[in-house]
């Protein structure tokens, strides 16, 4: 086997030195009745060329070269080439969690830079080293709010990503923590009056997303006021990090949970992505996951270490803030490189391009007969919702014929929205794709 660095003679030599006559002697502790005496029924050993051929063949069954208007928590942005050049360096790729600080300063400093960038983007004081993704991050943020406030209720906006809400429900299932959902208004934002009614002195956290699942930007200052008036914490989930280049950060929030996939991470059919929690300094000791802090060595040189680990499972066991151990370090590194490439000016310019594409697409679609733009009257980033007279499966097939993947049907999560679909226009979408899609949307009605 080509990954195994031993000759048969070396194996024999080692067995002799150990003092056993065969390798099976080393497995003799396993009760005989359970030992596997046959080959595993998995595909036979393959050459590298065969492995590549297999994956190429499967990949070819997935479409490529289509224009895609899919968003909804996973966003296609251009990925600068140097991201993959750098993260594939063996020193990053094949190192472990940086517990031994002297020989993992590269990972530690990069995470420190990541934490700084996330704090800068969100307007929070501190950020952790990463969470699995945006959905689990949001759930952990709600649990964190529960620990801080000692309260046991959560109020969640229905405009939060439906799958994030499902994950939250799973996390809260055995916590005696009740949640209530708050409806949205006709401009696609949280219903503030309903929110005010739902938040009580027992509310630990108000969870909203902005831009929300409909692409609409929530009125964070107003929501924060409602939450804080009752002593609840505001958790803001951000599924599209690039929005922070142009959208005001939710500085009134107590905890911000970001899905940072947009920062240079491949779509990869849903993962690996990277979540991250940011918060105010005063809540630091309740944050889950790893944290990198700055310190000095015995010669006074600056260096970085994993810190405040008394919050974590390997020290606190059942009293830990979370059971999280492995996080998404290499993906956080991708985000760090992406944010360094774009920098202060680039992140704004990139966000502006996304904003402009969506504004153009929404206006273009709106002009087509049988198409109605929903949730007008509130600011949006790069996603918007349309309602079509024609059922989505009909026009989606026509779009696919044109090598275009249309928006996401919302009925599955929002039955009341009927034919509504969620469209996303990131910067790789071209004007001609938008115009082609608009034509197809209009065509149905003309023919029908």
């Amino acid at each position, binding site marked *: 086997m080509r990954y195994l660095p031993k000759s048969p003679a070396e194996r024999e030599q080692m067995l002799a030195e150990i003092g056993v006559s065969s390798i099976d002697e080393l497995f003799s502790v396993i009760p005989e009745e359970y030992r596997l005496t046959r080959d595993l029924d998995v595909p036979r050993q393959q050459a590298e060329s065969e492995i590549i051929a297999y994956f190429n063949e499967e990949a070819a069954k997935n479409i*490529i070269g289509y224009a895609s208007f899919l968003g909804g928590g996973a966003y296609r942005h251009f990925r600068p080439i140097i991201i993959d050049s750098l993260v594939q360096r063996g020193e990053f790729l094949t190192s472990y969690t940086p517990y031994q600080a*002297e020989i993992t300063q590269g990972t530690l400093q*990069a995470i420190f830079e990541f934490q700084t960038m996330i704090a800068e983007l969100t307007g929070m004081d501190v950020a952790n080293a990463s969470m699995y993704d945006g959905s689990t991050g949001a759930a952990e943020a709600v649990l964190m709010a529960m620990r801080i406030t000692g309260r046991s209720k959560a109020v969640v906006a229905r405009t939060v990503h439906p799958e994030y809400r499902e994950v939250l429900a799973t996390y809260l299932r055995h916590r005696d923590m009740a949640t209530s959902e708050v409806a949205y208004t006709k401009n696609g934002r949280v219903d503030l009056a309903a929110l005010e009614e739902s938040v009580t002195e027992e509310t630990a956290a108000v969870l909203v997303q902005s831009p929300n699942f409909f692409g609409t930007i929530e009125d964070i200052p107003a929501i924060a006021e409602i939450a804080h008036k009752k002593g609840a914490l505001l958790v803001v989930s951000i599924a599209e990090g690039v929005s922070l280049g142009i959208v005001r950060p939710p500085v009134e929030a107590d905890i911000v949970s970001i899905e940072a996939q947009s920062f240079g991470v491949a779509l990869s059919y*849903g993962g690996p992505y990277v979540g991250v929690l940011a918060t105010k300094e005063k809540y630091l000791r309740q944050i889950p996951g790893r944290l990198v*802090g700055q310190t000095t*060595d015995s010669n006074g040189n600056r260096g970085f270490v994993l810190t405040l680990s008394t919050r974590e499972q390997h020290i606190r066991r059942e009293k830990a803030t979370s059971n999280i151990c492995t996080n998404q370090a290499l993906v956080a590194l991708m985000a760090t490189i992406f944010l360094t490439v774009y920098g202060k*000016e680039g992140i704004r310019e990139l966000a502006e391009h996304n904003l402009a594409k969506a504004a153009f697409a929404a206006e273009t679609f709106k002009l087509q007969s049988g198409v109605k733009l929903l949730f007008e009257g509130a600011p949006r980033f790069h996603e918007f919702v349309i309602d079509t007279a024609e059922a989505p499966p009909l026009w989606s097939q026509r779009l696919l014929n044109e090598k275009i993947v249309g928006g996401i049907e919302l009925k599955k999560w929002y039955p009341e929205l009927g034919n509504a679909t969620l469209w996303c226009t990131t910067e790789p979408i071209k004007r001609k794709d938008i115009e082609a899609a608009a034509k197809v949307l209009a065509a149905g009605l003309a023919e029908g």
Partner: protein
Amino acid sequence: MSTIETPAVNKAIGKVRPHQTQNERLVFEKSSPGKKAYKLAPLDVPEVDPEALLGDAVRKDPPGLPELSEIEIIRHFTRLSTWNYAIDLGMYPLGSCTMKYNPRVNEWVSRIRGLAEAHPYRPDSLAQGILNIIDLLQKCLIEITGMDTITLQPAAGAHGEFTGILLVRAWHESQGNARKKIIIPDSAHGTNPATAAICGYQVENLKSNAEGGIDLEALTAQVDEETAALMLTNPSTIGVFEEQIHKIADILHDKGALLYMDGANMNALVGKVRPGDFGVDVMHLNLHKTFSTPHGGGGPGSGPVACKKFLEPFLPTPVLVQDENGMKTWNYDRPQSVGRVRAFYGNTGMFIRALAYILANGPDGLRQTTEDAVLNANYIRKKLEDVYELPYKTPSMHEVVFSDKKQVAKGVKTGDIAKRLIDYGFHPYTVSFPLIVPGALMIEPTESESLEELDLFIDAMRSIAKEVEETPELVKSAPHSTRISRLDEVKAARKPVLRWKPE
């Protein structure tokens, strides 16, 4: 040896280290306004006025991100990378972490366009390739574990534990009683008790017996009608296979409790024995340990959960199914499901890598891999047991745990020996774990080490043992060869500085 001091005169000229480990400031300290590493394609739609569109929601103050050119970014992160130790540089014997070779073809195939650019919400009809890959991996992992069904959704090992214990709880609830407690051996990873607690269970500690294994009498006494499950790591964290495994399963099953297996040490079993065959009801795997996906400095991982048929109704949604036309699709209609544990379907990029590893090995390679991993650990044990105390004499599987008992007499602890290993060109072993061994040295070589590398490691460990006798101070003040010396962790925790700020 002494620390490499940086003379002040060198600091003044900036380049103060040998090339491979040049000093490098924080990326923010290298920034200057107006430098760029990006260029956007021209906007092909009308420009917009953000303030007009966003109103109060517009961002007024730009985030303090750095401004650098492309070459500076390449150099910055390349320089940082040289400060890391890595499997690619040498043996990384972290016990319990299975730091094996990460094959490069895995990285290559995970980046094939049709896979890397697949959006999770693309229609199933346009994602058959990736669904075939997921299906084949599921089948392979079910076969390897001897279980009946699987979910790939959990993002890491601890997330898999969470999912597995949710399955346990959902099953007990379906039987009318969720039960109250989970029994966890004192040798377990910290994630086990943390997981039980977040699933709403009381944690009951089980004391290991004199051999470091499960004490059957104590277990029998402890398991009752309120026991939901035992969370067992097998081989245990001292690298020992639970010889009485089936009796353990029987004790639990007699009281209606389940056997959960932490699969962290599955690298000792693949192709030789299957947990499903020895009574395990539910277990998680770590694709980033056993199946060679890279640790990446702490993630991403992937923590599939395999289980027996009776737990299938409770698996997280969605579940991959095949329709009557042979088309693979996601099934969301799962009324008894524990719910989702994360958005989308899991860390798909890791599935691709793990499957590539399984294909590269085949059944013979997987078995040989396990045999070599166990061979390596036993070789190290044999070659070091005269200089380091072996607290448990039971046969070792894929890792061996020594203690610092002999060295403590000279005032040298496991942590010091670990730091000294760095000077010999190795990453330290796992320090002070498992908790049942005071001053533990937990060594897991994995199958990826050649005889040459193992002998170098053994020489290093023997040399350090000698230094402990002759010059203990040298060991206690190690490492001496690194860019920075031991860091002040107390200072880091007392006054946390978790982000850079402009002066």
